């Protein structure tokens, strides 16, 4: 149990997927203009992460044993299908959210965080329960990072910023400070 708790805390804060391990930077820099959208994208990502964790465990256990070199290809195919399912569900049940997320919804399948989770999970040899804990922690961490970034960016929209400081450069500097803050969690224990 303590092991599971550690996996969740570790993937959520200590080695936060976005800010410490640099996975999933495209939505982090691209969809963080509004807190609500960012938060919802984080939730959608978490959902895909959980599905991926389950499928990756299944693939590792039953399929990839005799052919480990097919790992990358097998994972990416499963992820792309999972994203397709999520996309259809969101389009049916939340059409407004579907329009807001736009291109970034199908792009979840090329989000490094998803494939990264599958790869790390199999490298560390997690079982199904550990994998699910890992996915939940990573998803929460991702949502947290997206929402934090979006809140800070909304603040900068409201304040007067020198013209040079508008655009991507300053967003990256903000991200750097956020990342520094998250490094403080490293004191929680060896990761």
């Amino acid at each position, binding site marked *: 149990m303590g092991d599971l708790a550690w996996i969740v805390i570790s993937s959520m804060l200590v080695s936060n997927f976005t800010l*410490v391990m640099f996975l999933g*930077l495209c939505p982090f820099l691209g969809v963080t203009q509004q807190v609500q959208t960012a938060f919802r994208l984080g939730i959608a990502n978490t959902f895909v992460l959980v599905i991926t964790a389950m499928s990756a465990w299944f693939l590792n256990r039953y399929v990839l044993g005799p052919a480990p070199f097919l790992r990358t290809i097998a994972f990416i195919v499963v992820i792309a299908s999972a994203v397709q399912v999520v996309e259809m569900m969101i389009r049916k049940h939340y059409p407004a959210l579907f329009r807001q997320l736009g291109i970034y919804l199908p792009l979840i399948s090329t989000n490094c965080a998803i*494939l990264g989770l599958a790869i790390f999970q199999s490298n560390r040899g997690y079982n199904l329960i550990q994998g699910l804990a890992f996915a939940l922690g990573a998803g929460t961490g991702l949502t947290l990072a997206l929402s934090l970034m979006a809140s800070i960016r909304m603040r900068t929209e409201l304040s007067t910023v020198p013209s*040079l400081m508008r655009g991507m*450069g300053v967003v990256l500097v903000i*991200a750097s400070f956020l990342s520094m803050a998250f490094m403080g969690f490293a004191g929680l224990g060896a990761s």
Partner: protein
Amino acid sequence: MTAMGAAPVPVIGDAPQVVSVQRGVALPRRPEPPLFGDFMRGIWKENPVLVQMLGMCPTMAITNNVINSLAMGLATMFVLLGSEFIVSLFRHRIPTEVRIASYILVTATFVTMVDLSLEALTPGVHRALGAFIALIVVNCLVLGRQESFAAKQPVHRAVMDALGTGLGFTLGLSIMGAIREVLGNGTFLGVQVMPAAWEPWVIMVLPPGGFLTLGIVLLTLSAFREMRAQRAAVRPGRRIA
């Protein structure tokens, strides 16, 4: 042109006519930029790291020294080259509905090749890059170039584009890697370059340094751009928005 030169002397009058016919034939192919343009565009004007901001994850994660950056850049270039070649070769055969899935499969094949070759040839670098070699599959840069360029252009142009974009990516990564290694570790390619009294800025090789370095590089570039725009605006005596 024909109207001007045709009347006085028939012999000379014929010559421009021939030229103009040749031009008329050549006209549809004219707008096509030369191959060199395809090559150069990826290196500077549409540099994946510094201008387009594509493929951010490896840009941040593995650029804490120059060797890793170079290896990552070259690996990505190989994947770009192979997958753009294949996609461009089969561009009329891949059905539109399943094109993204096909592109990803093609990319994944080349990534697996790179992954296994690096593991066999340079185990040290492979260990340092870790999961990020496999993550080239989901680099937006590769999918972006396939979708926006290779799927519409003939093979030779796609190959030039892949070479240019790949070199541009390597260049961007190496700039980041050089800044971070020199400031954060005091070395360049593993050789000590800073004086012994230099206290390394450890933060530069840690995760926040990645964001900070790229942010500062981008701010510097936009400062230069603004300065140049202002100078251009002052000289002809009017403002450029």
